[in-house]
């Protein structure tokens, strides 16, 4: 299949097959989900030696496990003997996990420690039969990622300019952040419908989420909404986000807070926040939502991160966490979690309204007739360019610039044989 022909950025047309075709999906699993850096969990979920948490990399179940020396590892959740799942809990603490089938046991550094009746194997080399590790595991400010590809660039290089924006969520206060969750739920929609939506779709808010706004529930302050300026930003490597621009008469890290308690909290700590983030990120922009390619999305304003786990061409499993400043008081943390989960979670008054849109977009991609008609990504935007010193490539907020950028990178990754072909050149600043 000629993947690039599915995406036509010049005319702004995308072939619907990308949302439901089995052959394309299988290619995604192989070319994207066994090569790219994928989000596993937050360091606060596995703080102590022996702590583990279940995760997925694409459809592959993995165990994120901290060893006794404090080092993080991630392993396929399967026993090397016959392939039974070696850990059936979602989280916990264990120095040793024992397979329920024949009792092979693995220590928290992934090594095979114990094989019942080992003599009957005629000299089994336990060193060779440890849990299957990921190729690389690295953290960025609390977020733990892994890749199955030893050739992948470093995580920092992979994130590129996106790291600069992630700091606005992760690096506001001394001590960083902590995560709670995950919510886990299953939706009959292709994973890209969500990745695309979070990556820049400011356009859908009024139609999809009007009911929440009607009742005064929002994701940012009324001042920011009235000022009503923003932009899309493409960071390279398929990472994209959409950001508000600060109203100048209210410039500070508090300006985008949708809750009075958090506004006061940000005012109280604005000197620390600005000293860590600098003027532009603390006073001039406030990212709302974005996607770290391929399937980690972030909502800065309501402090949620989530992974769109692929579960077939027309299905995904969503894992979603709330992220709070570690240095905040318990009451402020509660307020942050409430802002997050009241809006974004299976019960969230924003998020619950997104699902049918994505389900039906996926459904259209199965229609023989609808497939003759491409999807429209022709919104080119008409807002004036922003005059700020931002990383990445800024474009009109209400446009399909980010979405096309995402799908061009997606197509490139599906076809690329090596990382040299995949990785964008770093942005010159």
């Amino acid at each position, binding site marked *: 299949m000629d993947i690039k022909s599915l995406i036509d950025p010049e005319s702004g047309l995308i072939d619907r097959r990308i949302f439901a075709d089995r052959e394309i999906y299988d290619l995604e699993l192989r070319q994207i989900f066994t090569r790219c850096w994928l989000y596993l969990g937050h360091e606060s979920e596995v703080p102590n030696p022996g702590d583990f948490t279940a995760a997925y990399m694409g459809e592959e179940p993995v165990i994120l496990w901290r060893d006794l020396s404090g080092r993080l590892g991630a392993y396929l959740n399967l026993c090397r003997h016959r392939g039974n799942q070696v850990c*059936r*809990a*979602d*989280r*916990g603490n*264990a120095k040793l996990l024992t397979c329920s089938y024949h009792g092979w046991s693995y220590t928290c550094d992934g090594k095979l420690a114990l094989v019942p009746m080992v003599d009957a194997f005629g000299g089994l080399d336990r060193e060779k039969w440890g849990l299957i590790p990921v190729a690389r595991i690295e953290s960025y400010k609390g977020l733990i990622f892994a890749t199955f590809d030893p050739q992948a660039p470093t995580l920092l290089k992979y994130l590129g300019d996106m790291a600069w924006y992630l700091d606005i969520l992760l690096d506001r206060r001394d001590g960083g952040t902590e995560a*709670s*969750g*995950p*919510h*886990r*739920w*299953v*939706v*009959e929609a292709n994973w890209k419908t969500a990745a695309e939506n979070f990556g820049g779709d400011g356009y859908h808010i009024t*139609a*999809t989420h*009007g*009911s*929440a706004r*009607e*009742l*005064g*529930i929002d994701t940012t302050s009324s001042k920011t909404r009235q000022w009503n300026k923003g932009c899309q930003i493409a960071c390279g490597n398929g990472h994209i986000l959409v950001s508000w621009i600060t109203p100048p008469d209210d410039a500070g890290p508090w300006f985008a807070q949708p809750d009075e308690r958090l506004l006061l909290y940000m005012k109280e700590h604005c000197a620390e926040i600005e000293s860590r983030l600098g003027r532009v990120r603390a006073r001039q922009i406030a990212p709302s939502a974005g996607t770290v390619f391929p399937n980690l999305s972030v909502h800065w304003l309501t402090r949620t991160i989530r992974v769109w786990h692929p579960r077939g061409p027309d299905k995904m*499993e969503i894992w979603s*966490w*709330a992220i709070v400043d570690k240095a905040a008081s*318990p009451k402020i*943390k*509660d307020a942050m*979690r*409430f802002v997050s*989960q*009241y809006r974004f*979670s*299976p*019960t969230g*008054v924003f*998020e*619950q*309204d997104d*699902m*049918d*849109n994505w*389900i039906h977009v996926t459904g259209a991609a199965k229609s023989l007739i609808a497939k003759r008609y491409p999807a429209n990504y022709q919104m080119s935007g008409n807002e004036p360019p922003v005059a700020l010193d931002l990383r990445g490539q800024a474009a009109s907020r209400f446009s399909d610039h980010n979405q096309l950028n995402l799908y061009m990178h997606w197509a490139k990754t599906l076809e690329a044989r090596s990382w040299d072909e995949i990785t964008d050149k770093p942005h010159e600043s």
Partner: protein
Amino acid sequence: MNRDLRREIEDFYYLEAELLDGRKLREWLELFTDDVHYWMPIRHNTFARPEELCEELSKPGESYYFNDDKETLRLRVERVYSKTAWAEMPPSRTRHFISNIRIKQDNGVEIDTHSNFLVYRTRMEKDRDVFVGTRQDVLRRVNGALKIARRTIILDQAVLDAKNISIFL
């Protein structure tokens, strides 16, 4: 246990189910005290001992499905009436089955009850979800009538097999 109280509590839950299934959500909201705490934890599979089921549930300070007071519940209810709350437009059809009602404690002011629920939801052409779990309530008499002062909803599923919970369980 007082048979009249038992019958009164059963009737109360059946009335609540009727209001929910009849989509009389504003009336349903009146069944709660003004200081209600409406809490629904998320859950995880753990290696806990069989009797330590609560170890599976998220605690205060962690994530949850619901952590509402009367006002945030009211906003959820009012949102459904706004016509563009798309998760409920067209609205879900629900059927609440409440059973295994147990009066755990009655101190004369508040009554602790446990009950099981099975909620069958259908919507649009093919949506179909089953939510099963237990409710742990604290009921309080206000001007003679029973009201819900605290509700904890514990869903049996760990991974929610539904696109959302846009209804009340």
